[in-house]
Structures are given as structure tokens and as C-alpha cells.
């Protein structure tokens, strides 16, 4: 399944994180707009669940924005 930024954004909205959506855009580093390490774990978990894939620990540090997450999934 190809990743759609709109789907990733919806996942983030439903993940009940501390992200400030007023400052949100697809390129924004989620950690700069309020996400802490636990929020990032939740977002990546929900992405894994949605796209039925397993993202290795060493990739997590790179997946910090919607666009980066989409690029990773779409290879």
C-alpha cells in the first residue's frame, strides 16, 4: 500500500499526542512542534499497524516528519 500524507496526518491527529497543529506542515519536524519520544513511538506504531510493516529501531530517528515517513514507506 502506498503511503498517503493525508492518511499519515490523520494517524497523527488520532494518536492523541502533544503536537501543536497550528505549526503543522508535512515537512515540520514533529519533535519541534511538541511531540516527545513517547508520541513518536505511538505515531510509528500506528503507522506500522496501518501499513502492516515493521520499522527497525535504527530507522526511528530518521522518521521525524510526515514527508519522511511517506518517503520511507514508499521506498
Amino acid at each position, binding site marked *: 500500500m502506498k503511503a498517503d500524507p493525508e492518511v499519515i496526518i490523520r494517524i497523527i491527529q488520532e494518536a*492523541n499526542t502533544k503536537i501543536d497543529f497550528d505549526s503543522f506542515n508535512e515537512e515540520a519536524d514533529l519533535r519541534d512542534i511538541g511531540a*516527545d519520544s*513517547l508520541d513518536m*513511538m*505511538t505515531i*510509528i*506504531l500506528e503507522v*506500522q*499497524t496501518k501499513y502492516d510493516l515493521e520499522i527497525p*529501531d535504527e530507522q*526511528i530517528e530518521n522518521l521525524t516528519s510526515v514527508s519522511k515517513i511517506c518517503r520511507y514507506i514508499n521506498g
Partner: protein
Amino acid sequence: MIGIKEIASYIPERVRDNIQLAAKFGKGSDFIRERIGAIYLPIKEPEMNTSDMACRAIENLLNKSGVGKDEIGCLVLCTQNPDGRGLPHTAAIVQEKLELPRALAAFDISLGCSGYVYGINIVKGFMDSADLKIGVLVTSDPYSKIIDSKDPTTVMLFGDAASATLLVREDSILEIKKSLYGTDGRGSIHLINDGGRLHMNGRQVFNFAATTVPHLVENLLDEEKMEISDIDQFLFHQGSRYIVETLIRRLKLDTKKVPLKMEKTGNTVSSSIPLILENSIQEPRVRNILIAGFGVGWSWGGMILTRKQK
């Protein structure tokens, strides 16, 4: 029918201030209150051993229930941090320290955060097959023995506590209904005692809990032909506030039905469920309780307990 009659606990008086500790790692009080959920962590005195904590919990249980030492037929102790190196088993040390009868079946079981759920069925099964009237399940797993004080992943999470649960053949309060268990040894590398120090991969523990426990709850309810609305309380292992809240969100549960009780205890491993159940058993309005333990192994177990009709 064998069921649960009483629960007691022991929580060490010495506490660590988790907010002060968090500041050393550059974390604010919000992180402790909203994410970890433990403001204080009870830590046993250095000279106190696993068996001593177990003895205190059993003494509290005997005082509370009025059961005499001579009446106990079996004692099952759940720990992965036993006295010494586990030889002899801690349950035997407890038998000697408390002067329990020699006609006592006493043994340890090695499980972490799923241990209470497993332990209930182990004691029930042993009592049933050995035709015993009274059994006691003890949880005593002081992680302070293996915590690395420089490791922020674990040092702000775990507290020491012990519990003792009385199982009886007659006059029980909670009936033991359906239970389900699981194991996935692929998780064994993510939560491990490596040379006397606890190592935890927080992300993997979180992923395991957030994905496995909702299925466990759903399967348990399906097998008992029950709905979420039939359960009055969901007692999840108190891994962290964040994990419990994630389970609430993923299962779409009413927060009022999911007690969070770790502010003064932290994650007490196999003791976290009985520390809450100790209160729930006293509340007549709470009829159906679903307990779920999950952690090291990976290992998980869920069980439905139902208050007996008078």
C-alpha cells in the same frame, strides 16, 4: 469452587522522589506525572531481601483474613529476583522465616509482569489436584536489585512492592473464570537481566503491549461471550501511565473503568495488579473484573474474575 478471598500487600516506606530524579535526566515534572505516572517509587532497604518483603505481605494477609499459619496448604512465590541466586527457592526461605507448617507445598515461579495471572491459575490448579483447602500466591520481585541508577529508561519506572493473595475452596469472594495466556520468546532480548543489570528496549516493550493486550482482551471477552460493557473494571498491569492510557485509547475504553494506581508505587512488576485488586475486592459494585498482565518474555495472561452472588 476455588476462588480469591482476600488480598494484602507490602510497600516499603522508603521512597525515591521521581520528580527530583527526573530533573537529573533533564526531564520535567510533566513527563513524570503524565507519561510515567509515578511521583514516588518505593525502594526496599538494602538489607531487606525478596523473602522479607514476601513475609510482610503474608503477615498482612493473615492479619486481614484471620487465617492461621497452620491452615495454609500451598505457597507459590512469583519472582525473578529471588534471595541469593534462587537456590534454595525463596518460598522455602519464607516458610522458615514465618514458621509456616512443614506440611506445606512451597515453590517459586519465574515470571515477570504476567506472573500474577499465571500464578492464580497455578495455585488454583495445585489446590484442586492436591485437594487443598487454602493456598497463597505471593508476588515479590524487587527490581531495585537490578536497576542501573544511571539508566533513565528504567530507574524512573520501577518500584518495589509485594502482595499476598488468599485462595480458598469455600467462601471465596471472586470466582476465577476464563483465562488466556501467551508467550513469544522473540521478545526475550528486549527486557533482560544482563549480568545483574536490567536492560529494556522501551520502544519494543511499548509496541508489544500496545499490540498484544488489545487482542488478549478481545479474545477473552469473545470466549466468555461478554462485551466490553459487561466488564466493570479492567485492571491492566501498571507498566507506565502512558502504556495504560494507550490501551484505553486502542480499546476505546471508558477511563472510569480502568484504574491507574501507580502514583506512589511505579511499576511493581507482578505486584501491580494485586495492588489494585486489593481495593476492588472490597467494592461490591465491581462485579466483573478483567485482569491482564504482560511483559518480560514476552509473556502475557488475561483472566476474568466475577464476584460471587450472595
